């Protein structure tokens, strides 16, 4: 068997059903056995698209996404998705071709130091030097990507290695002496956490993306139902706890709602579960949740104490630790032993009543269409288990704020790296992974232009994703910052509403293209899109250029200084 055949067979053995990729010189030998493999290969139009599709697939299904591209420029094109997956702990396995091993270091055609370049943005990477190692390394790659704190891995395969002969085997186990993630939390620390919870009068659960990675949403629900503590869900954890639960406070952080932000500021105990005290959540760290003790649960020991020193650090898998925590709380008396927190809950209710998210949609002729209105209408006219995929910017924040997530794995976005152009390819990946679900990409006009060509992939592969472009003809978030912090000096942010013509562009890519300019056209267009299931649909929503995302904590500012929408005449500091 050749190395190339062994590689494809190894992917089959690893349970791969679908992969995203684009062939080229150095990976050519590996593309040949794909013809005879049951693995579905989706031919992308740009390698970045392959990487983001693998991420969307992984975020929607929980299974590792796989992308395969050639050497040199293809490898560098997939660096952005690798970094994105690294920041958001998404398990993806990227296979890259490499020039023949004998040519490495000679500046051969399409040679680049792929393992060197990707070292800081992968959990681990491998350069294969012997075809006999291929099954072992593929097995290790999937193991590393999916266990502990998940993340991207890369396997670089020189062309002569793919072409050389090897003797097939499939290893039973992996032998990585330096890789033994801690899964089980320390029992004494868990007891200590249960004790702190039982003493807290103003606790908040700070749920992060780790809940979803650990498939701990049910365990979290059980914990909350037992201890009755309100929950904030970070941008990476939207859907990890249902928005329609009475104790769900929604998203905290720079564009979080007033109650989520303020409850953390005033808390006497933060129960951080799979969250990492990101600067977009904490604001100025020295003034973040000043009175709170911290219980911090994470599978990655390096997260504990990285930003905020926890009072109770617990290294372990979120699901297992939460399940143990439920037992520990029960041992201390369960729900009956929790203190009376009704003053805290009524304080929270008061904040919610005083400072809801708000915007105003007028229905007068020529009145601007508000992006929030589009999102609310979309939310109310799609199945409740719709998967929503966002790019990066204002539209992403509005989508996170206004959607009501009821199920885990219904929200896919680029959180840590903030990769514009993520939405279209990630939505395609999500739809491939969950063909039974409706998948809507909510995108900005700036983002859409970065990766829209992947809709060609979607059309030709019959992947019927739907794209709602909130077209405000600006790089909106940058525009917002220039308006607020650069004295309205707008530098290089104007894009134009109709260049390109998004409807014609969509049609040229084999999609249905629709345009919406007035509020009353929104719902009919969404209904029409929902009824099309044989090709992608793109709706160009011409929305208000001047709308801004509120609330807002200015970068580097304290969460105490949260700015509410000044148009509604309150709260602004």
């Amino acid at each position, binding site marked *: 068997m050749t190395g190339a055949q062994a590689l494809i067979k190894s992917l089959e053995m690893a349970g791969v059903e679908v992969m995203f990729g684009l062939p080229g010189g150095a990976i050519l030998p590996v593309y040949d056995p794909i013809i005879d493999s049951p693995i579905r290969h989706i031919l992308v139009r740009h390698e970045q698209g392959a990487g983001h599709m693998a991420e969307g697939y992984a975020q929607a299904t929980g299974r590792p996404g796989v992308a395969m591209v050639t050497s040199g420029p293809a490898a560098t094109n997939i660096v952005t998705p690798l970094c994105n997956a690294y920041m958001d702990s998404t398990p993806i396995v990227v296979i890259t071709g490499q020039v023949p091993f004998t040519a490495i270091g000679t500046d051969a055609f399409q040679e680049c130091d792929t*393992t*060197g370049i990707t*070292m*800081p943005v992968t*959990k*681990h990477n491998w*350069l294969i*030097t012997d075809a006999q190692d291929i099954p072992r390394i593929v097995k290790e790659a999937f193991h*590393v990507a999916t266990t502990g704190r998940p993340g991207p891995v890369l396997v670089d395969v020189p062309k002569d290695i793919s072409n050389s002969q090897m003797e097939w085997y499939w290893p039973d186990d992996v032998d*990585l*002496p*330096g*890789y033994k993630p*801690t899964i089980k939390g*320390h029992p*004494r*620390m868990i007891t200590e956490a249960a004790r702190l919870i039982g003493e807290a009068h103003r606790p908040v659960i700070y749920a992060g993306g780790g809940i979803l990675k650990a498939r701990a949403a049910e365990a979290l629900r059980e914990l909350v139902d037992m201890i009755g503590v309100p929950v904030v869900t970070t941008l990476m954890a939207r859907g990890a706890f249902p928005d329609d639960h009475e104790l769900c406070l929604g998203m905290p952080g720079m564009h979080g709602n007033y109650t989520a932000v303020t409850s953390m500021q005033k808390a006497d105990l933060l129960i951080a579960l799979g969250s990492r005290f990101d600067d977009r959540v904490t604001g100025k760290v020295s003034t973040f949740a000043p009175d709170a003790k911290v219980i911090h649960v994470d599978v*990655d*020991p*390096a997260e504990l*104490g*990285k930003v905020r020193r926890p009072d109770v*650090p*617990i*290294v372990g898998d979120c699901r297992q630790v939460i399940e143990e925590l439920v037992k520990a709380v029960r041992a201390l008396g369960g729900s009956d032993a929790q203190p009376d927190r009704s003053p805290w809950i009524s304080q929270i209710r008061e904040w919610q009543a005083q400072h809801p998210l708000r915007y105003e949609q007028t229905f007068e002729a020529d009145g601007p269409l508000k992006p929030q209105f589009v999102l609310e209408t979309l939310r109310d006219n799609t199945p409740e288990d719709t998967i929503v995929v966002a790019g990066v910017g204002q539209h992403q924040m509005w989508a996170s704020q206004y959607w009501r997530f009821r199920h885990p794995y219904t929200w896919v976005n680029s959180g840590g790296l903030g990769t514009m152009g993520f939405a279209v390819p990630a939505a395609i990946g999500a739809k491939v992974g969950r063909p039974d679900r409706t998948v809507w990409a909510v995108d900005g006009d700036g983002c859409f232009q970065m990766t829209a060509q992947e809709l060609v992939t979607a059309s030709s592969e019959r992947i019927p994703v739907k794209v709602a472009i909130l077209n405000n003809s600006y790089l909106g978030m940058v525009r917002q910052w220039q308006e607020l912090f650069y004295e309205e000096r707008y530098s290089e942010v104007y894009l134009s509403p109709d260049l390109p013509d998004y409807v014609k562009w969509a049609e040229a890519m084999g999609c249905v293209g629709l345009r919406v300019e007035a509020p009353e056209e929104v719902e009919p267009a969404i209904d029409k899109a929902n009824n099309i299931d044989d090709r992608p649909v793109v709706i160009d929503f011409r929305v208000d250029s001047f709308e801004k995302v509120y609330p807002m904590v200015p970068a580097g500012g304290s969460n105490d200084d949260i700015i509410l929408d000044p148009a509604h005449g309150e709260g602004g500091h």
Partner: protein
Amino acid sequence: MADSGAHRHHTLTVLVENKAGVLARVAGLFARRGFNITSLAVAPTDDERFSRITIVVDVESAPLEQITKQLFKLINVVKITELDPSDSVERELMLATVRADPRARSEIIELVQVFEGKIVDVGYDSLMISVSGPPSKLDDVEDLMRGYGIVELQRTGRVALPKLERQAPRLRSVSGFRTGTGGSGPS
């Protein structure tokens, strides 16, 4: 090189898998966090599957904890031990070519002997010396040789192992020596 006092030297011994690119991963991690490596020594161990990297860094302890944790996340890193200078044996080797005209030659030879060093090569008007020992001793030799004129100097960077325990385990548990006994929380 010399201890500055404001910062503290920390010696990390890192047991790694003996594979291509491991040193780049370790060094790259230090570079990304903006840490300057004071000295670095890499060599195979008695087990051919593993190598030991001895790294001396000059940082405060809080960022060191973070870098140690990040380092441990590298798949090829098997074990990390931070060695306290007072609780470990540290050794380093120095080779130096020193200007030695006929009048100075015997002085230099005498000094090198005091420090239990060796003359490893003799040139027309220079000597090459070899001294090994604790890094502070090498600092002293370096200072003394500077007066004669150092032509070239090369130090290996330190290697270190923890000091051996001097009490029998039974006695240790009776006297409560060290805090290693009993359940300590996750570090």
